[in-house]
C-alpha cells in the first residue's frame, strides 16, 4: 500500500454512517475504497449528483456520468441529479457533513491554500472555496512536506488562501493533526515516525498531548 492509499485509508476512518460527503480531486478520490460496507455514505459531486457509487467495470463507463474529478461513477439507489447551482446550494447551506480535500498549505489557524502556486501553477479554485468554507467538517489529506522538503503545515500560509479558519483535521503520511481554537494538536503519529520527526517537519507550533495515538501500525515503514 502506497502513501496515497494509506492517507485515503486513514481519512476513510473519519466518515460515519449516514454522512453526506464530498471528495476533492487526487488522494480523496481513493477514500471510498476504504469505507466499510456497513457505513453508508451519500457521496456528493459538484458535477451534479448525490449518491454516486464506485467506478463501473472497464467498458461499462457511462459518458454522461462523472464525479467532480472527471472519473466515471455509478448511481446508487436513492441518487439524484441536479444542476451545479443546486450542487453548491447544498454546500453553502451546510448540508454537507464532511469534505476531504487536498492542500498546498495549511496554517495553524486552519487557513487552507490549495488552488494556486504563485508564479508556477494557476489551476483555479473550482469548488474548493465553497467546500472549505461551508462543509461542516473539513478534513485535509496531504503529504506532510512539499517535494522540496518545505513544510506544508505553517504558522501562516504564503500562498493565496482558499478559505480562512476552515480546516478541522490534517491527515499526512506522518501524523494526524487537529486544528483547535488554540492551535494545532498532534493526535496521532504514523507507525513509521516519531513525534520529534513530526515536530521537525511541521512549520507551526504543535501541542503534544499526554496521549498520542499511533496509526497504520500494521503497515511498517513506507
Amino acid at each position, binding site marked *: 500500500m502506497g502513501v496515497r492509499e494509506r492517507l485515503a485509508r486513514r481519512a476513510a476512518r473519519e466518515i460515519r454512517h449516514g454522512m453526506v460527503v464530498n471528495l476533492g480531486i487526487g488522494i480523496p478520490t481513493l477514500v471510498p475504497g476504504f469505507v466499510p460496507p456497513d457505513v453508508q455514505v451519500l457521496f456528493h459531486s459538484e458535477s451534479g449528483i448525490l449518491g454516486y457509487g464506485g467506478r463501473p467495470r472497464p467498458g461499462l463507463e457511462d459518458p454522461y456520468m462523472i464525479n467532480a474529478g472527471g472519473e466515471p461513477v455509478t448511481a446508487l439507489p*436513492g441518487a439524484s441529479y441536479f444542476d451545479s447551482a443546486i450542487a*453548491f446550494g447544498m454546500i453553502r447551506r451546510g448540508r454537507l457533513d464532511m469534505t476531504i480535500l487536498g492542500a498546498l498549505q495549511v496554517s495553524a489557524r486552519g487557513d487552507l491554500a490549495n488552488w494556486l502556486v504563485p508564479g508556477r501553477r494557476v489551476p483555479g479554485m473550482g469548488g474548493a472555496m465553497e467546500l472549505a468554507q461551508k462543509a461542516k467538517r473539513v478534513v485535509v489529506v496531504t503529504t506532510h512536506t512539499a517535494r522540496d522538503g518545505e513544510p506544508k503545515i505553517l504558522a501562516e500560509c504564503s500562498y493565496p488562501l482558499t478559505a480562512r479558519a476552515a480546516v478541522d483535521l490534517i491527515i499526512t503520511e506522518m501524523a494526524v493533526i487537529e486544528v483547535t481554537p488554540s492551535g494545532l494538536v498532534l493526535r496521532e503519529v504514523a507507525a513509521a515516525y516519531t513525534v520529534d520527526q513530526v515536530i521537525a517537519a511541521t512549520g507551526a507550533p504543535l501541542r503534544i498531548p499526554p496521549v498520542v495515538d499511533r496509526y497504520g501500525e500494521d503497515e511498517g515503514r513506507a
Partner: protein
Amino acid sequence: MDVGMQAATGKVVSLDRALSVITDGVALMYGGFGGVGTPPTLVEGILEKGVRNLTLIGNDAGMPEVGVGPLIVNRRVARLIATHIGSNPVAGELMHRGELEVEFSPQGTLAERIRAGGMGLGGILVDVGLGTVAEKGRQQLAVGGRSYLVEPALVADVAIVYAARADLLGNLVYEKTARNFNPLVAMAGRVTIAEAGEIVPLGALDPETIVTPGVFIDMVVQSRGIKWKWSWE
C-alpha cells in the same frame, strides 16, 4: 436531530414527531399557491396542536378554509410575509384591525428571496419595484451602471412542503402546478418537513426526475390526503 444519520436510516416520521419542531413563535415557511401544494395534513396538525404567534412566509394567505388560511382565520399568525392576501378576506380584516402584520413582496422577488435562503446566499439584486413602494426599507445598489434593490434572503425555523412522492431519503417529486413554491421552500428551512402523497422505497424514483434532492429534507410524513379541490366547487 442528526440529519446525517437520518440520511441513511430513512427520514419517515410520525405526524406528532414532525409537529414537535413547530412551536409557539416559530417562523414557518410553506409551499403552495392559492392553497394548491400547501401540505394539508401538516397545517391541520399545527392547528390542532394549538401553536400560536407564528410568522408565516409564503406566496399567499390561502383561502379561509384552504392552505394556510385556517391558521390565519384562527388567529395563530402574528406576522405574514406574502405576495397577496386577496383570496382570504379574513387576512385583510385582521390586517386592517392591526391584529396581523403583513409584509408584501413582489411574487418573483419573494420566490428568489426564499430560494436565496435555501441556497445559502445573502440575498439578490432585483430591479422589479423600482419607483414603487417595493423600494421601502430596501438598500439600493448600482451594479454595471444600473440600480437594483437589495432583497435579503429568507430562511425559516421550519419549512413545510407538499410532494406527490417522497422516498426514504426525502427525495421529492411534485405534481403539476402543485410544485410552485415548494421546491424553493424545501431548501429554506432550518428544518424542512415534507408531507408526501406517497412514500416509496429507495430507487423507486427516477433520479433524473427528482426535483428536490433529499439532502434538503429532514422529515417526511404521510399525507392524509389533499383537500384543496375548492376553487371551482
